[in-house]
């Protein structure tokens, strides 16, 4: 189980991309984003809260996501994040870079 947190980030810089991708499906609160990533990755990627929220703030500062207060499933106040147009663009950019990098790594590994 790979734990994505600040100290041992396996693939640095991908957390932002993962969050953006998750939010592309629709607005979600922080906990929801973490849960989703964990589910979809088959429990491989476990986003620690210690890195989730700083990452969300970073995305907010850069204007890639926007936040609003809403009501959660169990009737509690929660903050919902949603992807902005700029965020969508950023997602595309990061996904492309990531794909290129992964492709390159894969090629190297396959060659041996």
């Amino acid at each position: 189980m790979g734990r994505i947190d600040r100290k041992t980030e396996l693939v640095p810089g991908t957390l932002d991309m993962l969050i953006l991708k998750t939010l592309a499906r629709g607005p979600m609160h922080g906990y929801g984003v973490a849960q989703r990533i964990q589910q979809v990755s088959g429990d491989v990627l476990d986003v620690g809260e210690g890195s989730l929220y700083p990452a969300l703030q970073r995305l907010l500062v850069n204007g890639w996501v926007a936040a609003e207060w809403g009501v959660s499933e169990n009737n509690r106040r929660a903050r919902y994040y949603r992807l902005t147009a700029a965020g969508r663009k950023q997602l595309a950019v990061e996904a492309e870079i990531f794909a290129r990098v992964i492709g390159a790594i894969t090629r190297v590994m396959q060659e041996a």
Partner: protein
Amino acid sequence: MRLLRVWRKLQFLARRREFDAALEEEMRFHLDMAAGKDLVAGLSPEEARYAAQRRFGNATLAREASREFWGWAWLDRLGQDLRYALRTLRANPGFTTVVVLTLALGIGANTAVFTLVDAVLLKSLPVKNPEELYVLGYDFGQRPFSTYQYQNLRDRNAVFSGVCAFRPWRFGVAANGPAELAMGQLVSGNYFSMLGVNAVLGRTITNEDDRVPGANPVAVISYGYWERKFGRDPAAIGRSIKIQGRPFSIIGVTPRDFFGTEPGRAVDVTVPLMMMPAVMPGTLLLTERGAAWLRLMARLKPGVPEPHARANLQVVWAQILATEEQGWRERGQRIDLMPGGKGLDQLRRQFSRPLQLLIGIVSLVLLIACANVAGLLLARAAARNHEFTVRLALGAGRLRLLRQLLTESILLALLGGVAGVALAWWMDRVLVAIMSRGAPQLTLNAGPDMRALAFTVAVSIATGVLFGIAPAFRAMKFDVNSALKAAQPALAAGGTRFGSLMLVCQVAISCLLIIGAGLFVRTLRNLHAVDAGIRKDHVLLVSIRPGVAGYQGAGALAIYRNLYSRFSGLPGVQSVTLSMDTPLGGLSYGTGITVPGRAPQPGDHVSVYHNFVGPRFFETMGTPLLAGRDFSSRDDENAHRTAIVNESLARHYFPGVNPVGRRILLGNNDDAEIVAVAKDTKYESLRGPAPRMVYRPYLQVNDASASGASEEMWFAIRTFGSPAGLNSVVREAVRAAANDLPVYSLLTLDEQVDATLVQERVLAILSSCFGALALLLAAVGLYGRLAFAVARRTREIGVRVALGADPLSVAWMVFRESLAVVFAGLALGTCAALATARLIVSLLFGMRAADPLTYLIAAITLVAVSTFAAYLPARRAARVDPMVALRYE
């Protein structure tokens, strides 16, 4: 994109608290959800919550990390540091006060001296492009030129964009009341335009105003004068004032910071050159070919190199000289171009050396102050060991700690700077007062200005960093574990050595300053003890210029006679006399003499000066006549010429014989009979020998070749009581004699003599004050260090006493520590004094720079003060109760 980011960040700053609360709530929500999930998975509520919290990790860190993206972190940290520093300072009021005061003294003194130095030495005139300005002079000085020379120089040069002329003068001005003497000047029409000075109200003098003699009675007044006399009333323009009794109309006001072209002499009223006959009546300076009365300043044409200008000027001057009389050609072949950006340098020449020395002194005082504060901070840092170790153990970064300590130091320094500015303002007034005593109207706009303020801030910050670094570094070199464990944290050996070194330096600097102070004070005393050949107490000097009110020749003599009898009739008057020159007031007229029948000898070239005096001159001045009789009222313009000579002249021209009854030939071969020999009197300065003097009766002045000798006469009134008490009745008497005749100067002989000692007095007073200050600071430093050492070694002392040590020997042990420091400092300071002795030799009088008595006194003073400083801690050490000391941790 960047802009939007910044905009968002700014929003964060505005709503910080909301943000924090929101984040908190969000995290709590997350925590609850996670706990809920665990609950579903089968854990008990408490376990679930506990598991969630564990998973959450360092919530605080997460929060901080989140915030970091929003805030400007450094701004946050700075704010935190400042708040913490303020709290710490307020918690230790005694410490803070001592430190701030010490710094205020050091920084304030530096700022005060810098402001003065700036005003006198550094500041450029408040005119346009002062670096292009030059002062013209010849004969190696800034000597005056004649109207003819000025006009020719102005019109025939090829290198200046303008040459202007001006002449300082003091006129009687009646603005809103009776006539008072005001600082004034006459200027050429292009003066203001050449300097680039525009009026803030009305207009300045132009070439039009300066065309026809006497045609334009216009005047420009200074801002200060406008404020004082007209209350800044805009209707002052067009108002009529009386200058020397004649109506002038005010046409403009100059800017606030413009004071003319001579630092230290602020001009209030300016009139055109062509109005000279109205303002200086009875003189023909404007038209007379040989009258040198104008000072010239010129502005170099842009792009002309200075040597080129000098060459061209020399050529033009040679052409002018060719048309002048022989006498001119002898005097001034060489015309000089001196940088004029700072104005005429009368003031600079007088105070340049003392001011430079002063800068050195106050810098040293500041260094001592810094060393003291550093010592205090080090001691306090040692006391804060515990606080530092805890913070380090809690995870504070070392760099953060260092930064916080530096912030504290700089804050202290800035506080000291603020207090220092207030102190500097006060000190400047005192300094100017000291420098002005006796000197007529020294006006320095020495208020705190931007440069001085910037200087202070820079010095404060530098000081803060300087004394803050040592303790900060010490705090960083910390071994957390051992410090937490040790009951009484031990001071590293390195720290003590550094402290000792600083203390030695402090003592050395104090020693140096005390020696300097001793030398200057003794110089002043030596000068005071010089026999000037007079009795300077109880004499009032009154200067009268009849020419100013239009009296000439015989008319002037009549005025003098009139005043003489009036003054003699005043109450409390012992005797009255008058003379052209007064002792220590300078000499105006000199010409060679010859003795019929005597061959020329080596040493004849030394100038012989003439002084025209009234009856009872020697009696009033307190100069004994060594042979012969005094002048009487019979020695008037109808009697044959008489003269009195002084000792020096008699010794040189009549060695070994009594000159009374002999004849001498004066300048233009007029012969005079010597009727007495007077004791030598000093006329120019107390240093140096008395000049050779020939005294002549004042009534015989007009037939002498001294042109303008009746221009000004000084009355001397010896009183029974205080001479200054006669001021008002003297003015009354003068007004009664001639209504429009102002009193030109009024001072006592004492003040006049004192005025020649301004430099020495300034140095003596200031070096004593700063020397004492330095000594005090060093003593405080010594005391602090010893007290701290005793406190630190209480246990050790307790052990010693318990083992049977004699309290006296314990006290001696403490005392011994200070002795080493004091003697090292003494040795260092004495060597420094000897090494720098050469620098101040020219300022001393009557002693060598390595005067042993002064050094001895300084050494004794130093040892005495340090003994006193060490006494209390030593006593405390002797009183240590071993029972208490051993138990107390």
